[in-house]
């Protein structure tokens, strides 16, 4: 994508707006309670907009559309699963957890099980999940600014982290609640309006579903290729090069490990270049390349005529329209175990949402359980209003600009399509979606910073290092922790650069689903759950999920392991999507240990009363005093 002043304008406008709203909200943030839980004085509607704003991350705003464009139908499980995770949260967690009055998951762990050691285990997990979730946001900021404006990668990282750190340290939860609710409004507007206009202009939603064959370029397209770039040619391809160059060509496609997709964003296969043992062909002027895989040996401008089958970069599997639009396409079907893959994927997304620490913290900003339930319901409506749109971009992208497959830019399809409308309207919409993307990663990052700062300032400092600290010292600790976490996240974001870290997001989801989810559900609904059972389940589920995903990551750099997994495809599916095994294991461990060695923590009856007694009875108290 070429640098665009409209995109830069959109990004800057959103940055300024976020800072201004943060400064405005700062006037209301004074006490520790303001900082950590916004003094529990947020109305359900504003709170719901803030939760939705925080929830709709870069992966939701940009990632889903890109994945739909690459993989088609199977990706629809992601947006639906993200929204449905919220239904489960509403049904099982929202009310009781708010009544319990604990601020963080570690608070819950200690409060329910009377074990400071358990708290430390939970703090550790919160920090791990939080940072793995924060990194992709920072990285997405850098990449989006880079592709949309042409500015260097670090500019996006620094600007976004700077805005977020300023808002969180200045206003805490109280401050970002207003900013995030504003950012939610921007995101919904930015995703729905261009999609709607695109549908009107390009002849309706049926466009990409019309033909059965390959994705073909709708107009003459010129690619700038560099040495070492790989193209998969799904058919014999006629092209013209700007200057003489050579390619290596081989018959057939790439070998691909099954299930090589993380929970949020596709991970490109490791080193496909190493596998090419093909013929060298010299090209000048016009050339007809046979179906197969080529690697460009030199830089050139390559032009393909309209109607040519679009070439694919290495990270995207080639698919016909029929395979793409049907179930078990390249994503699930590629694994050879479509049903197993699909069910495990659904499970990880659905249950992982419940265990994400930055989502749960939000429920304490409600005044009571009734408001907490109503908030979660409004969130469901808001998420639904958002999540129907990203797949529209993915589907339209396949029909209107399949050149993104070859240039490996499917992830920016949301930013690319609006300019196809042309003229001032296209530029205006480009500014709007850029602002929406900016809102996406800043609001999620803000929420993560509050939850990381909460874990460090509230749990580590306030409960562990200096339990006697007063409110002012606690607020300072929160602010310092927010600053530190933000700087660390930005620093890591700068270091990882363009390295694909989306695997870490999948890790975060899988760990959350197999540790915090069973802990919360059983801890709230099963009085006989013992401390030992809960701790063992969390440790076992969390470490099994970690082990599975680390094995998948190691396989991308260890060819022998990768070959082994390519043969044992069912095992490979389970390692890349471990939830279907690790979640039941964690549940069984918790239930089994609690049965074998009964003895729930003392006072569990009073805790159950606190979790489940309606506020109307007038029996409650909170962990963080007003």
């Amino acid at each position, binding site marked *: 994508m070429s640098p665009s002043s409209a995109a830069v304008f959109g990004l800057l406008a959103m940055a300024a707006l976020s800072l201004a709203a943060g400064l405005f909200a700062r006037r209301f943030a004074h006490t520790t309670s303001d900082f950590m839980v916004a003094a529990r004085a947020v109305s359900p509607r504003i709170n719901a907009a803030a939760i939705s704003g925080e929830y709709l991350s870069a992966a939701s705003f940009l990632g889903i559309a890109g994945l739909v464009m690459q993989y088609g139908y199977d990706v629809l499980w992601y947006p639906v699963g993200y929204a449905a995770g919220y239904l489960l949260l509403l049904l099982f967690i929202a009310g009781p957890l708010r009544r319990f009055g604990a601020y963080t998951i570690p608070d819950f762990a200690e409060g329910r099980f009377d074990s400071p050691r358990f708290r430390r285990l939970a703090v550790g997990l919160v920090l791990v999940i939080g940072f793995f979730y924060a990194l992709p946001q920072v990285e997405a900021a850098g990449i989006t600014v880079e592709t949309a404006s042409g500015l260097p990668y670090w500019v996006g990282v620094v600007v976004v982290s700077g805005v977020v750190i300023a808002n969180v340290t200045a206003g805490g939860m109280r401050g970002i609640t207003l900013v995030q609710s504003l950012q939610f409004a921007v995101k919904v507007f930015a995703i729905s309006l261009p999609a709607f206009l695109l549908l009107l202009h390009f002849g309706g939603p049926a466009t990409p579903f019309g033909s059965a064959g390959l994705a073909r370029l709708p107009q003459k397209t010129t690619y700038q290729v560099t040495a070492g770039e790989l193209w998969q040619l799904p058919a014999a391809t006629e092209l013209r090069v700007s200057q003489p160059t050579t390619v290596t060509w081989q018959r057939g496609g790439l070998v691909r490990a099954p299930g090589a997709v993380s929970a949020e964003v596709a991970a490109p296969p490791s080193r496909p270049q190493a596998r090419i043992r093909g013929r060298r062909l010299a090209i000048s002027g016009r050339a007809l390349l046979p179906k197969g895989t080529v690697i460009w040996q030199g830089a050139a401008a390559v032009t393909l005529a309209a109607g040519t089958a679009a070439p694919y970069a290495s990270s995207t599997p080639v698919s016909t329209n029929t395979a793409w639009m049907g179930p078990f396409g390249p994503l699930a079907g590629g694994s050879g175990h479509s049903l197993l893959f699909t069910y495990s994927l659904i499970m990880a997304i659905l249950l992982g949402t419940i265990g994400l620490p930055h989502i749960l913290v939000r429920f304490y900003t409600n005044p009571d359980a009734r408001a907490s339930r109503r908030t979660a319901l409004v969130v*469901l409506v808001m998420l639904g209003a958002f999540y129907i749109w990203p*797949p529209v971009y993915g589907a339209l992208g396949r029909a209107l600009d399949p050149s993104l497959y070859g240039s490996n830019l499917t992830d920016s399809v949301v930013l690319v399509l609006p300019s196809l409308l042309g003229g001032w309207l296209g530029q205006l919409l480009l500014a709007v979606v850029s602002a929406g993307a900016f809102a996406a990663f800043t609001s999620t990052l803000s929420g993560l910073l509050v939850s990381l700062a909460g874990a460090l300032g509230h749990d580590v400092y306030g409960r562990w290092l200096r339990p006697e600290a007063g409110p002012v010292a606690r607020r300072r600790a929160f602010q310092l922790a927010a600053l530190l976490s933000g700087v660390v996240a930005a620093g890591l974001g700068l270091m990882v650069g363009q390295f694909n870290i989306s695997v870490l997001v999948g890790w975060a989801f899988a760990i959350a689903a197999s540790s915090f989810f069973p802990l919360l559900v059983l801890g709230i609904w099963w009085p006989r759950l013992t401390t030992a059972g809960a701790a063992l389940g969390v440790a076992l589920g969390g470490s099994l999920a970690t082990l599975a995903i680390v094995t998948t990551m190691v396989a991308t750099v260890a060819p022998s392991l990768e070959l082994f997994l390519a043969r044992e495809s069912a095992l490979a599916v389970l390692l890349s999507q471990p939830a279907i095994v690790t979640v039941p294991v964690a549940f069984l461990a918790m239930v089994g240990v609690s049965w074998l060695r009964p003895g729930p923590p003392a006072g569990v009856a009073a805790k159950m009363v606190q979790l489940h007694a309606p506020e109307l009875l007038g029996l409650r108290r909170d962990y963080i005093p007003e």
Partner: protein
Amino acid sequence: MAQLPGSDPSPRLLEFEEQTEVGGLYLQALMRRQLRLSLTLALTFVAFLGVQPLLSTFWPPWTAIKLAGIPLPWLVLGVGSYPLLIWLGSLYVSRAEEVDEEFTDLLR
């Protein structure tokens, strides 16, 4: 309304708060009702999701059905899920509040 400050709490409320044997039974009854409500609604949506891959596997013709040019599976999953989610959610909120209110009336 809730227990007014100054007035004597009812004996049932005291039993509940102190979690005597009878009080424990009250709580168990409340939790059972809430959990049954939550499980019913959750399983409804899980069944809605879970049946779709089975349909695609064992009755492939359904993937070929199109509505206004769009494949039916896309519409059912990508659009139809959200109204169902919202409906189940609002059903839950009103029922759960009813259960809470009935329970409060019982103890008062």
